[in-house]
């Protein structure tokens, strides 16, 4: 192993990687924010007593959880336009695919959290004459969301890792820029090592935060 590392050239192209990091962050933020909203409605539908609603939500969740993300992104980028005649940009297709995928996982987190709230809370709210959504917003969600935070943080970490898959459908996020750089510089070893470290630095704090939150909640007995 007398290979001479040439990290200098990788750092000389830091601007390329920084541009990639920026797009990775944008992809992550858009997909996560929209998935949190979509997931809430899916989670409620999944826990609904109405058969049709429940069935549709269950089917959606199972389909997205039981197929690879890469297949989903490829489907939205290459197959969906054939069906609808709408050609999305790679970034839009990736955001959509990642959002839908993450919303399926978030739905299960919401459902679990909502179920953990005792029936008495619902009954008390109803006895006060609160409408469903007010009760949900004022009484149930504030209690449930606190218990869900660690799970959502874990999901955010998973999503951050998933964004790299968007590189396959030509979104110029960090992983895609890394592939370009590795090819141009003939330095794949250095490039992918540096990029792996960048991802670690970006993602690891999330994992640490999730486990701290979990411990904090466990200590509070929530």
């Amino acid at each position, binding site marked *: 192993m007398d290979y001479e590392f040439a990290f200098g050239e990788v750092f000389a192209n830091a601007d390329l990687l920084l541009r990639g990091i920026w797009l990775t962050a944008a992809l992550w933020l858009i997909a996560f924010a929209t998935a949190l909203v979509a997931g809430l409605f899916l989670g409620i539908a999944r826990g609904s007593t109405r058969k049709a609603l429940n069935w549709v939500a269950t089917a959606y969740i199972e*389909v997205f959880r039981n197929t690879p*993300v890469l297949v989903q992104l*490829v489907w939205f980028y*290459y197959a969906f336009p054939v069906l609808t005649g709408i050609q999305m940009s790679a970034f839009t297709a990736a955001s959509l695919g990642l959002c839908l995928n993450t919303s399926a996982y978030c739905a299960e987190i919401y459902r679990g959290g909502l179920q953990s709230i005792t029936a008495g809370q619902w009954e008390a709210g109803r006895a006060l004459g609160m409408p469903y959504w007010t009760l949900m917003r004022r009484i149930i969600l504030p209690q449930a969301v606190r218990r869900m935070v660690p799970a959502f943080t874990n999901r955010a970490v998973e999503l*951050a*890792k998933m964004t790299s898959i968007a590189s396959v459908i030509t979104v110029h996020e960090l*992983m895609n820029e890394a592939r370009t750089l590795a090819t141009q510089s003939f330095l794949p*070893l250095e490039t*992918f090592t540096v*990029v792996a470290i960048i991802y670690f630095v970006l993602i690891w704090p999330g994992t640490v935060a999730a486990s701290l939150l979990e411990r904090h909640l466990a200590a509070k007995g929530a």
Partner: protein
Amino acid sequence: MGYEWDFSPVWRNAGPLLEGLGNTLWLSAWSILLGLALGLALALLRLSRSRIASVAALVVIEFYRNTPPLVHFFWYFFGLPILIGVSLSPFAAALLALSVQSGAFFAEIFRGGIVSIERGQWEAGRALGMSEARLMRRIILPQAVRRMIPPLMERSFELVKTTALAATLAYGELLYRAMVIASQSFRPLEIYTAVAVIFFTVLFLASLGMRHVEVRLRRGHR
């Protein structure tokens, strides 16, 4: 939507697609086996009394848990050969990337399972004069393994989904075969839909199987 579905390219290419599924499962099986072995080794190092071994294992586990799998696929395929002077086949690179990463996840499951056994069990074993190794084999592991099986299975399903990334290294698994066929037949919609259905069927059946095992494990515990 006046699109006329035509699944004939899927049926015409059923042979290569099924072969691709076979390769997906082949890669999955070997990665799970190697990953379990690596995971057990990492867990034992992590639990060992030697501080250096424990910290080293922790670094490997945390690094691999907090970086995207796709980076590892590229690192092992394009980077590692430069370091060791031997080029790797797409299968070998994918196998390494998948098994090392899932090994990191498996290690945490093994460790969690062993740590979850109450201290009283250790003390009782010691009081009976059992050696450490015997105590582990006879008392701790039989109880811990029960708790490890569901998360180990869940992680293995994640791994099966991740094998789709091997398509980026042109390993002939299901998605790669589909990409080739889609570009020849100009029927991406039908072909990628078929791939999603195949993955879904395999993974959904597997998750039903897992639920069955979970129920049996719980019943056995009583």
